[in-house]
């Protein structure tokens, strides 16, 4: 078999010997399982219940950031989207668009962390595709993942099910992924170390479904962060949400960076945080169940759902006043002085 050179070339996408060398030596090696074959499509055992399916493209720049990389992210994103629907992730496919010149060692690290993350979530990678594009036509590597999961929750979850009196929980500190990526772009000259919260959350979610069978909403707070998710839920369920600013967990470094740049941590992306909305009586059980998982040990209640002021998110400040959380959608521009 062809040995791999140090860098990807256009020939690795041409379908010949070098393509198969890449597939064997990187993807098959890392993704090995009985369902992943050399045939044109994977043949899969049918799950017993309803299936959920989700797909997402990942184009993060830089591809490697403190606490993770694009490969890990591409698995977490899809696995967590399925988890939010109460679906146990089963099968994943992935499609790579690789820029000519990418170091093979980087691709190897990306594939290795994808395999590891999928395993952590209990899912397998069953099929994939590789395209190589010319220099400048992509930024190192873009990955699209698609996932199929089996709905295991008794009760369908939905953003439209939040009800007045429900508790609003978040599974850990907010804004870390967005902040880590901003800092690793190195445009700011800020000397702070922040690691992404990137994590696959099926196991904690499944524990939550057991602990609180009447769970109403689960959403992962990716692009747009927790603030955007809360507004989406407030609109979908036509309810108000009241937050307590001193209960919102923010890592001190994230808070420091946001202070300097004039950003709101509630609007920075998370890649390993869920917002959960649950009947008040079940909040304690979920908090107990999720506190034992390393990725969700920071779970806490940050507010509650209200009947007043539907479709608005109200912040109770530490000095006892009430303000509205700004509506998402306005660009986050660093401030001038």
């Amino acid at each position: 078999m062809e040995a791999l050179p140090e860098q990807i070339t256009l020939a690795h996408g041409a379908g010949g010997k070098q393509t198969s060398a890449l597939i064997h030596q990187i993807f098959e090696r890392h993704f090995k399982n009985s369902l992943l074959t050399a045939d044109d499509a994977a043949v899969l055992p049918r799950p017993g219940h309803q299936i959920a399916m989700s797909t997402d493209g990942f184009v993060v720049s830089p591809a490697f950031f403190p606490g993770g990389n694009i490969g890990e992210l591409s698995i977490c994103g899809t696995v967590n989207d399925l988890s939010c629907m109460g679906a146990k992730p089963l099968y994943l496919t992935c499609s790579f668009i690789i820029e000519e010149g990418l170091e093979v060692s980087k691709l190897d690290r990306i594939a290795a962390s994808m395999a590891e993350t999928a395993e952590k979530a209990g899912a397998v990678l069953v099929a994939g595709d590789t395209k190589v594009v010319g220099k400048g036509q992509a930024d190192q590597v873009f990955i699209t993942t698609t996932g199929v999961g089996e709905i295991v929750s008794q009760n369908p979850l939905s953003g439209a099910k939040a009800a007045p009196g429900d508790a609003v929980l978040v599974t850990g500190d907010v804004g870390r992924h967005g902040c880590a990526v901003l800092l690793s772009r190195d445009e700011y000259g800020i000397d702070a170390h922040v690691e992404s919260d990137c994590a696959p959350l099926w196991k904690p979610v499944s524990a939550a479904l057991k602990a609180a069978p009447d769970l109403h909403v689960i959403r992962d707070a990716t692009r747009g962060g927790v603030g955007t998710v809360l507004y989406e839920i407030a609109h979908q369920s036509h309810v108000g949400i009241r937050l307590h600013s001193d209960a919102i967990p923010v890592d001190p470094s994230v808070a420091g960076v946001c202070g300097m740049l004039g950003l709101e941590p509630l609007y920075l992306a998370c890649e390993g945080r869920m917002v959960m909305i649950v009947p008040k009586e079940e909040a304690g059980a979920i908090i107990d169940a999720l506190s034992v998982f390393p990725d969700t040990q920071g779970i806490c209640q940050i507010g509650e759902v209200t009947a007043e002021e539907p479709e608005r998110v109200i912040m109770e400040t530490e000095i006892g006043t009430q303000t509205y959380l700004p509506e998402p959608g306005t660009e986050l521009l660093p401030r001038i002085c």
Partner: protein
Amino acid sequence: MKQNHQMSAPLRRAIDFLKTYDGPEVRIMEVCGTHTHEIFKQGIRQLLSPKITLISGPGCPVCVTPAGYIDRAVALALDHGVTVCTFGDLMRVPGTEMSLSMARGRGGDVRVVYAPEDAEKLAAEHPEKPFAFLSVGFETTTPSSCLAVDHAIRDGLDNFTLLTANKTMPAAYEAMKNSTDLFLYPGHVHAITGLADVKKMQQEGVSGVVAGFTAGELITALAIAVKKYGEGVPFYVNAYPRVVTDEGSPEAKQLVAKYMEPCDAWWRGIGMLPDSGMRLKKAYARFDAAERYALPEGNGKDNPGCHCGDVLQGRCRPEDCPLFGTVCTPVHPTGACMVSSEGACSAYYLYGGEK
């Protein structure tokens, strides 16, 4: 759930005082946009008795930058092929014809940077291209523009310029002193300039308190201001001694004095204020984009429906502007006060005004 447990006893007393204040009516202008933003974000107006009114002043560098300045920056990018480096806030400020983000859409090379030195670094890395940094801001940011020029000289650059619209706060105090009973002075500015300007205001009979930026610092400063106001004698208090000293920062002042000199300046919505601007000295004209590219003077045209001038001078509230929240929103700003997160209109819009 935790709630207000950490509030200290003095802070609680200050809040009680402000809530129950029943002395003579008092209007307080926060000159600085960062104060405005924080006051809204923290809901501080809800803590004030009806006898206390806060007015948002003109102290947001983006809000007072005239359309004509944006026009010159657009011309640099589109007509002179200069790479224009700017703070993000300026990107969407409307010029007469277009904003900088529109200029970028038309092929201009406009880049967002986070410090003037970043623009200088870019110029050093690309000696083949001309660069201009849009130097706007008050005393807090002017020193870093001067530092960028200092570095350009050190690095022997001939491709780096500033397009200056730097302004100084005392001119705003002078212009606004009849619109308010007292000032909440911006702590960041006085960390650089020291207390001479606020002493001078006191001698002219104008009172004020230098304030920090956290909720606690703002509340403390307001309580001091209201209490002293009741005594009826002009005063100044430095309520931010952690950061602000009598003399300020001599290094920063020296740096500015080396490269810049005062000039008259046009404030969007307010007009010409004598000696309220800073420009590069003649000896450094080669770093002055307006000189080097012979950019025409002119203040440009604002949207005629816009009430920014009245808002900036505390003569009306953002909601009183007919464009507020309908035609003019943070996503499609008509006036500069809606663009910057420090603008009064943006603060009212984002935080829902007086809740």
